[in-house]
């Protein structure tokens, strides 16, 4: 954000992460080098245990690497104190999880406003911004629903709204569609490619090869190393045409939900 345009958002140099000690030691990330520029939509693929999620956790400053450097916006974040890292998390990183991870005892708008709490914003301002963000995801009518009253797709859209509310420089998504049916999956992917078009950097871990078609760059990992790194010249579905169809779909969903409520 504060760095100039030529600085990559993320630069990893021989990043290494090990678990366990002695004989049981297991190298999860093995000297990973990776540079991610602003505005990329990256899909990370690979078999289970290849270190995708570990990489994502390190990128999201939830975990620390054992060796190597991680430069976020040109700043080395590996050596920072946990308080500084928490501050960066609150200002620059948005998380989307497979299992949504909304706080169950808070309603939708409070969940979306939660990241703003840790930026020290006032309650009214938080709720206003959260409401605005929910509006862009066509969820304004769900503001005061509790998380368990939403469908899977809606829940994930709330989670994405929450990840974006603090205007992060990178959005990290760990199998965002893993718990959704294929129709909801595509709705979510449309949303992600939509926010990608608005200039956000997105890093997504997925098992589903279909979804890589939304990404601008696909990285395959095997055994803690990058196996292949392909740039898609033009992301397939980021055209806008299906978007319209999607909006229509949403409308019908909404009316259906309303009917359900009336009953």
């Amino acid at each position, binding site marked *: 954000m504060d760095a100039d345009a030529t600085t990559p958002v993320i630069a990893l140099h021989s990043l290494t992460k090990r678990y366990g000690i002695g004989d049981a030691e297991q190298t999860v990330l093995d000297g990973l080098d990776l540079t991610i520029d602003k505005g990329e939509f990256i899909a990370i693929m690979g078999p289970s245990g290849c270190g995708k999620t570990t990489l994502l956790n390190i990128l*999201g400053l939830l975990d620390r690497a054992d060796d190597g450097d991680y430069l976020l916006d040109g700043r080395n974040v590996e050596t920072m104190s*946990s308080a500084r890292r*928490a501050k960066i998390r609150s200002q620059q990183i948005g*998380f989307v*999880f497979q299992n949504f991870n909304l706080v169950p005892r808070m309603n939708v708008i409070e969940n979306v406003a939660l990241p703003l*709490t840790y930026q020290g914003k006032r309650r009214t301002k938080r709720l206003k911004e959260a409401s605005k963000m929910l509006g862009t995801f066509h969820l304004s009518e769900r503001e005061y629903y509790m998380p368990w009253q939403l469908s899977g797709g809606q829940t994930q859209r709330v989670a994405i709204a929450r990840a974006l509310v603090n205007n992060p420089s990178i959005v990290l998504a760990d199998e965002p569609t893993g718990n959704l049916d294929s129709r909801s999956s595509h709705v979510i992917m449309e949303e992600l490619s939509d926010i990608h078009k608005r200039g956000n950097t997105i890093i997504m871990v997925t098992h589903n090869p279909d979804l890589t078609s939304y990404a601008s760059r696909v990285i395959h990992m095997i055994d803690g190393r990058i196996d292949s790194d392909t740039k898609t010249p033009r992301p397939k579905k980021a055209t806008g045409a299906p978007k319209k169809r999607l909006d229509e779909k949403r409308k019908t969903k909404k009316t259906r939900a309303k009917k359900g409520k009336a009953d």
Partner: protein
Amino acid sequence: MRLLLTNHLRNALDSLRSNRLRTGLTVLGVTIGIASIIVVLSLGAGATRLITNQLVQAGGAIAVVRTGSAAHDTQINNLTATIAGSQATSSLTEQDVDSLGSIKNVSAVAPLMLIGGTVSSDHATPDNAIIVATTPALTDVASLPIDQGQFIDSVTNQDTAVVGQQLAIDLFGTDQAIGRNFHTHGVTFTVIGILDALDSPVNYNNVDFDHAAIISLESGKAFNQGVASIQQIDIRAKNDHDLAAVVKQADKILATNHKNEKDYTVLSGNDLARPANELFYTVAATLAIVAAISLLVGGIGIMNIMLVGVSERTREIGIRKSLGASNAHITWQFLIESLVMSLAGGFFGYILGYLVAFAIARTFLTFDPAFTWLIAGCSFGVSLLVGLVFGLYPALRAARKDPIEALRQYH
């Protein structure tokens, strides 16, 4: 930070409200602990206030000479010496009384000679009776209202006595006891006066006049081989503002009489109440410490429930951390939750404590519990401390949780 504080507070109230029964029981634990401390302290303070009030009634014109040197005594010695005054060796003499009486601006001087032994009537021998030998001037010094009859005076017969109301009832079964006889040390006394019920077992004379038989100093001397063994001399100045000069003068006269041997103490003002006050504070503080054990149990309850809350909300902690909460944010979130519970317990405990204290005082005691800022501050401070001490460990435990592990819970 201020913004987050209100946020944490709202958050804590939300989460406490979502577990009403659990929160209520935990708060009850602290409430009972604080209430028991409040009962002890408020009654202790009530007793102390009783003494102080009496001094205020005396008009601040009273000075007291006691045997023994306060300067050399330790605190505990002081306490026992004044309460068990009758056992202390007496160093005050009738000559001291006479010379103190001659000080300018002194309106009255009365010696108090406490005599051991039992008092018995034909029917009963009460075991807590006190025999006080004194001069008629006592009624001028200490305000001892007479219910019936008269106080001993210079013309009354030596074998007459004034008795406290309770003693009259204990001896004769009635407070209509004028003219009846009791025996002590082989002498028969006739009751010529009954004191009003005083309801003040503790006073600067260290004599519970409700249980006292007041006889003349001459009779008292007769029981003691003709020597007046005076434990205390009460002096009343003519005016409050003369007291300082009177005390100074008394000190000087006694120094001459005792050949500069400091075996006496002249006390006035707050010093009079201090030994008794200190005793009550010591007793109340000891009892409060015992009561604090129940508070400890309440505190452990808070810790227990907070630990349950932390492990129940492990996932939430992970979510919050991934959204940018620092360890300090998480610590405060849980600490404020435990503080809300302990302070609520402190508030309800303060109210409950006074309700119980008033119930006890009105049923069994002759004085009301006292309201002081010290006690209110104490209940606030102690409950704050309990919340901090017992909430800190769960809060730190919550903050130290690894966000990745935390997010993995309950998949």
